[in-house]
């Protein structure tokens, strides 16, 4: 692990994979720039793992091509693609010592003995486990095994790293810890990384960009902020973070746009938001963007009644019922200064035009 190497570019063009009647991967195209950390995010069955397996070479696509560093590798077998990979259950070889596990790819490449020694040691230090070389995988804890798996994947300095839900088997605290370590490791090495997970928080923490997938197709690609602030459809809005979703109609009232829902709920909408859509739409607003608007300080206000209030430690969650039986979830951080209306209280809530998304 000398200087950081530049990662290679990974380009996927029009990948299709069908199993019988099911399109597991349906026309997926994506580019991972050199050194970028991209996460494939989606529920199970979304095709994210299959896509990763196509990049790795374990699944042959029915259509489309894979390029690594500009070279087409679609028909190249996995052992010749020069990729690094970390598996969900670590896949450490149980009959070899940790040292032998990490040395394996180097031995396969016929590296000289002293080079092997040096590089394995460096790899162990990289994942902060310098003393476990003589032990066997089964003697280590899950977190330690995962680090060794990472060390093994990186010891031969591949230009691309693939990760298939590597933290899935770990408990929460350890997982969060590992996330931080993985991210800093990846940035230091500058290695292009393609990561698969179903955990949206994990995706947001680790990635430069996130690819949201559903039923084999890409729903949206963007930075975590892009996806959170500007989801392009309801699925993305719902999958990334919590959101309120009101269904209604967009109407023109005089010279203004109004969102009308249920019986009599009318919410003003800035023309910019609507993008000139009319008819049935959804209004999406994040719970933390809704404020108490007693003093009328927001651009949009609505009257409602607090239906429930739940204390969650770091936050308090309220359910507010608006005119026309629509309810919104509102969350506020647990600060001394914030108002804590009790159940049954009438309140005024509000937000700014920019906080709402019309889809």
């Amino acid at each position, binding site marked *: 692990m000398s200087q950081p190497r530049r990662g290679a570019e990974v380009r996927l063009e029009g990948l299709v*994979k069908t199993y019988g009647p099911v399109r597991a991967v349906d026309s997926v195209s994506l580019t991972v720039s050199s050194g970028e950390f991209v996460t494939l995010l989606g529920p199970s069955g979304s095709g994210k793992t299959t896509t990763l397996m196509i990049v790795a070479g374990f699944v*042959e696509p029915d259509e489309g091509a894979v390029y690594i560093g500009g070279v087409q590798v679609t028909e190249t077998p996995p052992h010749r693609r020069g990729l690094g990979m970390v598996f969900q259950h670590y896949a450490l070889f149980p009959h070899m010592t940790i040292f032998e596990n990490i040395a394996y790819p180097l031995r396969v490449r016929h590296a000289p003995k002293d080079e092997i020694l040096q590089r394995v040691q460096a790899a162990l230090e990289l994942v902060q486990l310098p003393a476990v070389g003589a032990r066997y995988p089964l003697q280590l804890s899950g977190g330690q095994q995962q680090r060794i798996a990472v060390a093994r994947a990186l010891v031969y300095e591949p230009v691309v790293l693939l990760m298939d839900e590597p933290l899935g088997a770990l408990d929460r605290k350890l997982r969060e810890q590992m996330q931080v370590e993985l991210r800093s490791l990846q940035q230091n090495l500058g290695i292009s990384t393609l990561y698969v997970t179903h955990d949206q928080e994990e995706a947001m923490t680790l990635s430069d960009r996130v690819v949201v997938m559903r039923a084999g197709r890409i729903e949206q690609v963007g930075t975590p902020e892009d996806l959170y602030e500007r989801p392009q459809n309801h699925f993305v809005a719902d999958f990334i973070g919590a959101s309120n979703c009101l269904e209604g109609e967009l109407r023109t009232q005089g010279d203004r746009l109004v969102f009308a829902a249920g019986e009599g709920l009318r919410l003003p909408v800035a023309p910019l938001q609507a993008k000139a859509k009319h008819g049935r739409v959804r209004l999406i607003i994040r719970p933390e963007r809704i404020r108490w608007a007693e003093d009328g300080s927001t651009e949009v206000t609505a009257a409602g009644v607090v239906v429930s209030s739940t204390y969650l430690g770091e936050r308090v969650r309220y359910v507010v019922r608006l005119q026309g039986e629509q309810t919104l979830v509102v969350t506020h951080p647990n600060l001394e200064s914030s108002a804590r209306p009790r159940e049954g209280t009438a309140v005024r809530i509000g937000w700014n035009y920019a906080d709402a998304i019309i889809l």
Partner: protein
Amino acid sequence: MLLFSEESGVAPPARLLTHAQRVARRRALGYFYLVLPLLAVMLGLFVFPILQILAKSIFEPSFTLANYARAFRDPIYLRVLLITVKISLLTTLGCLALGYPMAYLMAEAPPRIRGILVALVALSLFMSLLVKNYAWTVLLQDTGVINTFLLRWGVIHKPLHLMYNLFGVLVGMTQMLLPFMILPLFSVFSGMDRTLRRASRSLGAGSLRTFLHVTLPLTLPGVGAGALLVFIVSLGYFITPALLGGSSEMMLSNLIENQVHQTLNWPFASALATLLLSFTTGSYLVYHRFFGSEKLWERV
């Protein structure tokens, strides 16, 4: 008009196979090649000679069914066929009578004891067939262990004839085939939902009623499977009737051996072998139809 165009209505040939399909095909072929050597050996050393036997039974010297007719018309041979079925049925009943309660008790036993019981039953299965038969001769002979002790203790005054008769054969065959009944039944009992029985009791049914209406029906498939298996294996038994039976306990396999080694009547022996094979195969097809073949694969 161009050959491949919208006018002609003929589409240009797509690349015959995608890369994915070619890889899949190559892989399937590779795995098939792994099975090929054994397949070849089986065809040459197993299937072919058995077909030869079949041929010998009807084609020597020209097409004839006389050999089969003989098996059924000649009372001596017909008797052998019947005694084979009779012994097999009795063995099956014996195994059922002893094996069912044993399997039940084994499944009810506490875990550690259960493990030991299963190991012991399996052990008896793996022991050499010849040694087991020899042991019975030692025990059942007129001058054998059992008679010696019974005489010594004055329970009897002359030796009981426990061998060279139906009793000896049944004792031996039951002992040897019991594990075939116990082990499948044991897995049925272990897999049975115990709460059903408890539910039955809590609803007020007594032990006998619970047994008849809950336990028995649920285990019947296992019973059928075990019984059919024991029956089929008994049909082909050779060593036990030879060593423990008298001349009237000659089973089909013994007759076949006799015809080959003593009478040198190959066509007849072949016909008898074909009959045995047909009967056995037929029974297995019945087994497969009713119970599926998974049970056969699992057990070693």
